[in-house]
């Protein structure tokens, strides 16, 4: 960075001092911005999450976050939790369990399609679908949130566990439009098959991990 012919040598001390000073100043700025907005940011995140969960589980009035691991189920401790599978238990106004919501994701047409699905432990079925984030083609891939026939797949999508309780009895998958024969299949949207398959794969991957862990411990989340 010294292009001139006459180079005035700056002492290393001056350089280090300047950088130190600037870094300190910047550190103070960042930390105060972080502290100042922390409350509002986490409140915003909670509201957004609640809104998404309540949308897929009608009738829910409050929710709690849990983590399912091989060792059992624990309330989530705020921070991200390594190996466990995160899920949300939603409760009605009187504190009864309305349903379980969990996130899933798979690569769609353009990028990862992130979804939130509702699971009804009583019926052992997926009962709702919401989209958390995607970059699918507008007017084609984004039909997964508007197409009523597609959303009808998620009124009661069968996710029963097999006899051992280690995996789903029948893997959830999306099939070509019009060829749905079984309650665990998703009738894909004609013309948006790739996106529909991503939804199916996202649900399947997440449910295969979560439900076997959840089933033996369901009582822990039964009431608030």
């Amino acid at each position: 960075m010294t292009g001139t012919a006459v180079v005035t040598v700056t002492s290393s001390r001056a350089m280090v001092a300047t950088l130190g000073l600037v870094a300190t100043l910047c550190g103070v700025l960042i930390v105060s911005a972080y502290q100042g907005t922390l409350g509002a940011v986490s409140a915003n995140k909670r509201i957004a999450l609640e809104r998404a969960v309540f949308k897929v589980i009608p009738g829910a009035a409050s929710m709690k976050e849990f983590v399912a691991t091989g060792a059992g189920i624990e309330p989530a401790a705020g921070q991200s939790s390594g190996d466990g599978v995160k899920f949300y238990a939603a409760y009605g106004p009187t504190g009864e369990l309305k349903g379980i919501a969990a996130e899933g994701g798979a690569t769609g047409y353009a990028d990862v399609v992130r979804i939130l699905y509702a699971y009804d432990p009583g019926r052992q079925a997926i009962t709702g679908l919401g989209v958390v984030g995607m970059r699918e083609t507008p007017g084609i891939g984004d039909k997964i949130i508007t197409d009523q026939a597609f959303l009808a797949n998620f009124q009661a999508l069968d996710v029963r566990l097999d006899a051992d309780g280690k995996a789903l009895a029948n893997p959830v998958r999306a099939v070509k439009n019009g060829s749905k024969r079984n309650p665990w299949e998703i009738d894909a949207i004609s013309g948006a098959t790739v996106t529909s398959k991503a939804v199916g794969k996202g649900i399947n991957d997440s449910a295969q991990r979560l439900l076997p862990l959840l089933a033996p411990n369901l009582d822990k989340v039964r009431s608030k």
Partner: protein
Amino acid sequence: MHDISAGQIFVSAVLANNFVLAMFLGLCPFLGVSGRLNTAAPMGAATTFVMLVASLCAYGLNWLVVHFDLEFLRLISYIVVIASAVQLVEMVMKKYSPALFRALGIYLPLITTNCAVLGVALFQTAREYSFIQSLTFAAGAGAGFTLALVLMAGLRERLNLARVPNVVQGTALSLMLAGLLSLAFMGFAGLGAGE
């Protein structure tokens, strides 16, 4: 996202989600350096190299900031460390491999503040890629950038020989070309999707 294979990540970063043509990252060099084929290729190679360095640094740094619960320092540490690492690499290269330095070195300072490089670091963090996935992603992003740069340079070299109305010349024409390329690359969409 632990279940995406390295191959899928690579293909997606090169074609379906090409950094330049689908994600709009690294447009400054894309429009600025793509005039000639013989500078486009080394520029792409140098960028790929910097992306790999950045990806390595970002992976380590992310582990650090998460471990010490300092997420608010992530961005500032990424940019400072990546810039320093690239300068360090540049110095080492100059000393031990002057030939390589002459081929790539002149581009290195330019690339450090290229948004594609920081983009690699930020996206691999946001998508929670593992170490191998991160490096594959960086390599794919670099290959995709190089591909776009070389294709564009080839087109522009041809265009120099064509008669073009004055009013269209310059950046406007480059952007229209980039639009056509981007349209062509949309044909790759869906390639990364697994069954």
